[in-house]
C-alpha cells in the first residue's frame, strides 16, 4: 500500500534535502556520527523517557490515593533534573580542568550551586505545601 500521494511527495522532497546535507554530515567519522544521530533518539525514547516515566509511576504508587503532595515533589524534581541534564559536564566536573585552562574562570561551585538550587526548589515546594495544608485545615473542604 502506498498511502496518500501528498505526504509521500513531501517526504521524498524532505529526504532529498536531508540526504544532500547528510552525506556531508557523514564525511568524517560516519559510523560515530550515525551512532550519535540515531543514538540520541534511542537514548531519549528507550532510556531517558522510560526512566522518568518509571520514577513518576513509583512516586504515584508511593503516594497512594492521597495524591495532593505529589506535584510538590514532581515540580522541583523536574526542574532540578533538567538543570542537571543540561549542565552535567560542568556540574560533574568532567570538563573542569579544560574550562579553567581555557577561560581563566573557576570551575568550582557548579555542583554546589546546583545542589543549593535543588535545595531551594524542594524547600520552596515544601513551604508551599505546608501553607496549602494550613489553609486547607482552616477552610471547609473543597466540594470539587
Amino acid at each position: 500500500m502506498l498511502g496518500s500521494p501528498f505526504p509521500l511527495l513531501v517526504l521524498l522532497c524532505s529526504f532529498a534535502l536531508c540526504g544532500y546535507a547528510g552525506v556531508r554530515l557523514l564525511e568524517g567519522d560516519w559510523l560515530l556520527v550515525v551512532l550519535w544521530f540515531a543514538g540520541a533518539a534511542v537514548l531519549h525514547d528507550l532510556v531517558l523517557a522510560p526512566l522518568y516515566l518509571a520514577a513518576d509511576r513509583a512516586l504515584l504508587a508511593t503516594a497512594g490515593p492521597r495524591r495532593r503532595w505529589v506535584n510538590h515533589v514532581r515540580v522541583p524534581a523536574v526542574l532540578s533534573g533538567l538543570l542537571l541534564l543540561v549542565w552535567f559536564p560542568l556540574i560533574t566536573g568532567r570538563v573542569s580542568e579544560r574550562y579553567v585552562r581555557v577561560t581563566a574562570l573557576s570551575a568550582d561551585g557548579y555542583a554546589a550551586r546546583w545542589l543549593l538550587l535543588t535545595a531551594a526548589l524542594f524547600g520552596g515546594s515544601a513551604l508551599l505545601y505546608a501553607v496549602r495544608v494550613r489553609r486547607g485545615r482552616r477552610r471547609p473542604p473543597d466540594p470539587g
Partner: protein
Amino acid sequence: MARSLLTAPRWRSPLRGPRFTAVLGTVLLAGVTVLFVTGLVSYASYNPDLARVNDKTPGKGILGFYLFSWPTDPPWLYRLTQGVHVTLGLTLVPVLLAKLWSVLPRLFTVPPVRSLSHALERLSLLLLVGGALFQFATGILNVQLDYVFPGSFYPLHFYGAWVFFGAFLAHVVLKMPVALRNLRAMRRREPEEPGDLVVPDPGAPTLTRRGAFGLVGGASLLLFATSAGRSFDGPLRQTAVLTPHGGPEPGTGPNGFQINKTAAYAGIRPAETTAEAWRLAVTGRSGTVRLSRAELLDLPQHSAALPIACVEGWSTSDQWWRGVRLRDLAALVGEEEPTDVLVESLQRRGAFRKAALRANQVADPRSLLALAVNGEDLSPDHGHPARIIVPAAPGVLNTKWVARLTFGRL
C-alpha cells in the same frame, strides 16, 4: 503480563492529546525557526566564502547559497544574534522534551507500518527527533567545552542543522493543518476529538493541562534566568549561576573582562611577545614592513567601543579599545583601496589561528589592531602585544597575539 520494550507500555496520562501536542508544537515551530535562522546568520558571520581559512565546511555546496558579506553595523549584531541563538536553544530544552513526551505513544504504534507513506513518515521522524536531539546535544556540549561529539563542532552542527531542518520542514507541512485545527477548536472551547494521542482509559488526573504548561514554561524560565545573564556584565552575569562564562569576571581592572582562550592555552610563550622579540609583519602591494610595538604606538592611535561576542553565546558589553586602524596599516603597505586581509596569530592551536577579514571590515574606521583596552595595555590573555577588534565580527575572528597581516584580495 510481562512487559518488554516491544510491547507498548500502558499510557495513562490524561494530559496527552492533540491539543497539548499542538500548543508545544507551535511554540517549537516559532522557536526552532529562530534557532535555524540565527544559526545560518552565525555561519555567514564567519565569511566562509571569503577564504579557505575561514571555511570549516568547504564541501557545503548549495547550502551556502545565501551567504553575504558580513556587515560591521550595528556593532552589537553578532552579540544579539548569537546570544539569542544559544539562550533560546537552552530555553527550548523543556519544550522539546515535553513535546517528545506528548507523542511517546506514537513510537509504539501498532501495526508499526501501515503503508509506504507511513513507513517513510516514521523514518522522517527518526531524522526529526534524532536531528533535534543531536543539534541540542552538540550545542549544549560545545558551550561547556565538552568536545565528546564525533568530529569538529562546525561541520557537525551546520550539516546536522540542515538534516534536521529537512525533516522539520516536512513535519511542519504535514502536521500544521492538524495543529491549527486543534488550536482553533481550543479557542472555541470545543471538546477534544478522540484520536491516537488521547489515552482511551486515562488514570486519574494528577496535574491539570494548565499546570503542565505552567511546569514547562517555568522550566524554560528557569533555564533562561540562569543563562541569559552571561550576555551582560557585572551583577547580571552573576545571575547565570550554572552557565559557562556566568558568575564573576575572570579578573579585575581594565583587562578583567571575559576571556575566550587564555595565552597559556593557546600556547603563547612569554619570550615571543617581549618588546625585543615581537615584530608585526605587514605585507601588501608595496612589500613587507616589520613594526615593533613602539613603532605601532607612534602611528596615529584611534579608539572604538566594541563588545566581544562568542559563538558559545556569551558576550561582554562594549570595551574601550585603542590602537591602529586596519585601513591605516593597509595604506602603509600601499593598499589605498579597501582590501581583504589575512591575519595570522602566534597561537599554536585553535581552529582560527589564521583568519581572514573582508574589505568592508578592514575599511571600517572602528576596526583596529588594538594595543590597549579600557586605558591600559592589553593583558597576555586579551592578546598582548596586539589583537584585532572588528565591529560585529564573531569573537574568534578578533584574532589575538597577531604576528602577521597580509593585505590584498583573497
